[in-house]
């Protein structure tokens, strides 16, 4: 059993190291690698092989998780380009952006007053998705031009949308539970 751990995740899945990816190829190659290295296949092998199969599988899983998520993939690309992230110190102070984020979060709270809260949430989700798409386009463009500061800012802003979409989904689930 051989596996080259020096490959980056794009290389593992035989994809070009880029923001735009072939999702079908990612999914196909993931399944293929999964079955190739699945620890169940090595139950009769040496302890060393078993350990190695586990390590390979977790590397593949982690890579798949990162590549299939737009924000994580963008961030990973910047990390490969040696752009540093500091969770403690990176803050966003773009007033307009934060005001719109605040407004979107307030809108989630206010759907309770809406006669049709689920539709109101769907509308919010669409709105968030559109804005996120614009940010993705900004990232793609900055990344291609190696404008690292702008690219990093887009990645950081995408994180807010991830959180927002998560909040909208939780609210949807809570409302659906109430309706049952």
């Amino acid at each position, binding site marked *: 059993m051989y596996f080259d751990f020096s490959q980056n995740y794009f290389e593992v899945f035989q994809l070009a190291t880029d923001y735009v990816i072939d999702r079908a190829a990612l999914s196909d190659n993931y399944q293929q690698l999964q079955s190739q290295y699945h620890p169940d296949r090595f139950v009769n092998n040496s302890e060393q092989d078993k350990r190695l199969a586990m390590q390979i599988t977790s590397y593949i899983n982690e890579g798949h998780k990162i590549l299939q998520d737009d924000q994580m993939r963008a961030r990973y690309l910047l990390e490969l380009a040696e752009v540093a992230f500091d969770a*403690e110190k990176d803050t966003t102070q773009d007033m307009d952006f*934060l005001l719109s984020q605040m407004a979107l979060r307030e809108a989630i709270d206010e759907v309770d007053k809406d006669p049709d809260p689920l539709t109101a949430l769907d509308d919010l989700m669409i709105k968030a998705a559109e804005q996120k798409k614009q940010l993705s386009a900004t990232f793609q463009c900055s990344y291609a031009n190696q404008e690292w500061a702008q690219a990093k800012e887009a990645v*950081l802003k995408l994180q807010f949308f991830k959180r927002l979409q998560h909040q909208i989904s939780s609210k949807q689930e809570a409302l659906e539970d109430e309706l049952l």
Partner: protein
Amino acid sequence: MAYGEKVLDHYENPRNVGSLDKDDSSVGTGMVGAPACGDVMKLQIQVDQNGVIEDAKFKTYGCGSAIASSSLLTEWVKGKTLDQASQIKNSEIAEELALPPVKIHCSVLAEDAIQAAISDYQNKQAEHKKSA
């Protein structure tokens, strides 16, 4: 994750939640976001003629530690001068709330928010003088 007692207290009974009129010239508004978690924090101060913070309000969409940090900070800055308020360090907030290392960024956010609110107020005052 287990939250400390003080964090829980501020989280369950947040002080000074709300908004001040951001267009009022005696109000400074600070907005900051923590990309690490996607938290958004708005902190506002109302300043009297002597440069003393009379009132402070916050609105935070974030985790318990972010809410507690901003709640605590609004309590601390009331009655302080702008100068005194600008000297509050995130480490003091983190220490008071006993924040674990992974939540330190929440206190950084609060410090950034008060700094942003103070500079917004000062910019407004400078504009005011110019137009007067």
